[in-house]
């Protein structure tokens, strides 16, 4: 559906995207994950033919974004991060206007259906300027899906919303899957885990990882980590744990709580347990720690070094 090859984008002398390549399949939900300023919005703006690429080829449904910009725009529904709306219009007027410019027909039917889809019927007659932020975001989404586009691109769709609103928006996005190809950007990791089939982690204008959320997590879980809590430990406990053969690293999290990293062998858990019992430290907790997407993200974007 979408094919991006060696995409590079400069804003003046500043490089925003550096040789980015990826593809998106039909009806896939792809997440762009990355810190602010990583290049997520720039990539989306290029996909939506808002801004042209400096180099590289970007095709949506076979149409080049630069040479066939109008055809590309017909295929795409886009919610920019700033959620641009005409505040002087009512929700219905706004959708009427967008429907007319997109030549949606029959417009009335489509608008009613879209209002229903994003739960906006009650607000249809309200001036957009008077709407709360979460509802405005829904109006933006309504505009993006109004013409039943093949591709829906949502830039930070849940940014700045309260938990209830976030849940609503996520539900709408989940409803879109199966009918549309969806690309969304976020810097909330759990969102990607919940919504996306596949994740692109972008940092400093480059793709640093591309996989399913589950496999990205698995990738980081090379070794095994456990958390150990005891009733009391002598000062030399750290060294004693460290001395166990399969242990790679031990960290004292707080008094009597340790995080132990192994070289990948599940037998080691018994060894730790035996040691604790032998020494009479009083075992309170011993459990494996799953790596989270957060860890993957921090590792890949190099943030983990900064945080020690």
């Amino acid at each position, binding site marked *: 559906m979408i094919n991006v090859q060696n995409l590079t984008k400069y*804003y*003046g002398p500043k490089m925003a995207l550096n040789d980015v390549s990826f593809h998106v399949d039909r009806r896939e939900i792809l997440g762009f994950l990355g810190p602010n300023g990583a290049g997520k919005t720039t990539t989306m*703006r290029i996909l*939506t*033919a*808002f*801004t*042209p690429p400096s180099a590289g080829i970007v095709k949506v449904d076979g149409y080049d974004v630069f040479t066939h910009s*109008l*055809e590309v*725009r*017909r295929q*795409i529904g*886009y919610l*920019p991060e*700033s959620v*641009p*709306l*005409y*505040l*002087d219009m009512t929700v219905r007027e706004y959708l009427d*206007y*967008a429907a*007319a*410019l*997109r*030549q949606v027909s029959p417009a009335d039917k489509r608008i009613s259906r879209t209002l229903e889809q994003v739960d906006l019927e009650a607000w249809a007659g309200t001036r957009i300027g008077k709407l709360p932020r979460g509802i405005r975001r829904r109006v933006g989404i309504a*505009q993006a899906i109004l013409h039943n586009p093949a591709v829906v691109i949502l830039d930070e769709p849940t940014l700045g919303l309260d938990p209830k609103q976030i849940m609503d928006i996520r539900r709408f996005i989940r409803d879109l899957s199966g009918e549309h190809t969806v690309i969304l950007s976020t810097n909330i990791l759990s969102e990607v885990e919940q919504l996306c089939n596949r994740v692109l982690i972008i940092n400093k204008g480059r793709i640093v990882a591309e996989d399913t959320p589950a496999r990205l997590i698995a990738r980081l879980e090379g070794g095994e980590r456990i958390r150990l809590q005891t009733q009391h430990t002598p000062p030399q406990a750290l060294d004693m744990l460290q001395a166990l053969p399969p242990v790679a690293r031990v960290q004292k999290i707080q008094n009597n709580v340790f995080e132990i990293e192994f070289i990948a062998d599940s037998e080691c858990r018994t060894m730790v347990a035996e040691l604790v019992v032998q020494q009479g430290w009083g075992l309170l907790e011993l459990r494996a720690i799953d790596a989270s997407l957060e860890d993957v993200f921090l590792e890949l974007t190099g943030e983990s070094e900064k945080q020690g």
Partner: protein
Amino acid sequence: MNIVIITRRELTTFFLSPIAYVAGAIFLFVTGLFFYFTVAVDGQAGLGQVFSIMAVMLLLLAPILTMRLLAAETQSGTLELLFTLPIRNAEIVVGKFMAAFLFFLAILTPTALYVFILTWFGSPYLPAIIVGYMGLILLAAMLLSIGLLASAIAANQFVAATATIVTVAAVWIIGSLGLPYTDTPGAGFGYLTIQEHLTYFMVGLINVTDIIYFISITVAALFLTTRVLELRRWH
């Protein structure tokens, strides 16, 4: 088709905008006052002087009508929306220009009353009045297109309005640099100045060069506006 949709949307906004009404009302009030003076006080059965005042008023009216058209879209970010809809820059520009132009015609329409009053009580030379209106409408098109260009360039509406007034005032007076010395290089300014081309219309004379002057500047300004929008995409 897209042009019509954009024009309709912008016209609606004009008709709901207090600023546009106030500006239109002031335009009609001042020109009405001058109509009263020329007819009742001076006893003339012509609109020549009224047209001149309308032209001066237009210098202020045009920026007020156009300042919002593109600058507000840049300010609010809705330009990003328009840019990702399947419409061309030229359609955006022409659609918005037509809205301002039609709204100006709506403001101008009540002045037809002056013509009725003149023909009722006197016998004005109608062709001269028609030519005068023609000149005024051509001038309006030109000033509105310059205003639209400023609105595309400027970061906000007030900068757009100020830039338009300064530019237009400069073009208005630039001719006086050259006019008194018709044999000096400065004489070239004479062609650029608005007054030079407007004068003949105001007295009822049609000159092809004058028509070309107004239309060519209008088209050039609209074309430049589409290019400025294109630049906005590239940042």
